[in-house]
């Protein structure tokens, strides 16, 4: 969606236009869903919950979105990242989604634990590392494309990518170690 259309829809939403809100939702929901699913390492039940909470926060705080400072999807991702951080910081004694959630029932517990460790490791990464890994592996962009987007040289991007993978590895190792220390 062109930025100008986004600005126009935003203005309409500010005065309570439902159709404009639905248009914004339709234009960005798939992108947000893909981002959240990646950040949850494929845990669909957690992703559903985070997506829901993100949209509720977005509609309540739509007045604080400034279309001149960035795109709506980027703003949504920022909200989702905060929701995810809060989610992984909480010591969950009960899952946010009930045990009856189809995704939860279908997921093997070890597989789920692994996914949670990956998600927590992603949450620990600095923002530029996470977004670089996402650009490379989720969005499938080449190093050259990322360099052009980030206004950097391909060499710089490759170097940063190596550091990002290393940080990811260390964060995951730390999460796995925590799990081993706590025990089953």
């Amino acid at each position, binding site marked *: 969606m062109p930025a100008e259309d986004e600005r126009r829809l935003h203005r309409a939403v500010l*005065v309570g236009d439902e159709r404009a809100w639905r248009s914004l939702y339709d234009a960005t929901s798939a992108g947000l869903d893909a981002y959240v699913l990646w950040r949850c390492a494929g845990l669909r039940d957690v992703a559903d919950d985070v*997506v829901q909470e993100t949209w509720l926060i977005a509609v309540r705080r739509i007045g604080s979105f400034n279309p001149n400072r960035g795109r709506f999807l980027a703003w949504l991702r920022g909200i989702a990242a905060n929701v995810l951080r809060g989610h992984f910081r909480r010591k969950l004694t009960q899952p946010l989604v009930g045990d009856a959630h189809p995704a939860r029932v279908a997921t093997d517990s070890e597989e789920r634990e692994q996914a949670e460790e990956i998600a927590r490791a992603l949450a620990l990464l600095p923002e530029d590392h996470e977004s670089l890994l996402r650009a490379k592996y989720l969005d499938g962009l080449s190093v050259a494309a990322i360099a052009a987007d980030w206004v950097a040289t391909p060499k710089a991007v490759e170097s940063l990518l190596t550091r990002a993978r290393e940080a990811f590895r260390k964060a995951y190792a730390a999460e796995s170690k925590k799990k081993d220390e706590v025990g089953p």
Partner: protein
Amino acid sequence: MIDKPLPLPLDDFLNNPPARPEPAELRRLVLGQTVPHLGRRRRWMVIRSYLWTAAIITPLLLYALICSSAVELVRRLAERADEEAFAQNHGVLPIVEEPQPAPAPPLKEKPPPVVAKAPLPAVALEWKAFDAPGVQQSALYLQAGDRYVEDKHDLASALRCYVQSVQAAPVETLEIDPNDNWLVMALKMDQIERRKEK
């Protein structure tokens, strides 16, 4: 720089990132929860616009009310001050009468002057002239002008009243009267000329 190999779960995650089609049920749920907020926002916008309008209009109304009350108060105080001054000068308290509506005079006759039972101060006469209907107005302004000259030697106020008197006077009554002072005569002559030009 050679990358260290990532643990298998991470390698698998990066090379096979999770994906799914957007769940329709989630979309329905999210829209169902968020759209009512737009209705609340619309209602709040309406309320806010009413509040802003009231916030702007209320001080203006209060200001207008205060001003009109102040004007009335000043007018009454001025009348009272003049009456008291007149009483000191003449030893009598003027009786302020309600204006008597005079009958319409015949064309060739001058309208009978409205004379208060007791002489009124100049300011009171001027206010009375201001409120008086058509024909009476000219005579009252004339009296007020005479009072300004006699009691206060206030020529500026007298001139103001004489001008009003002459302008309000029907053309038939603009003849020079022997009792007119030189200022009234001059104004009448000027008014006659103006009306002839028209």
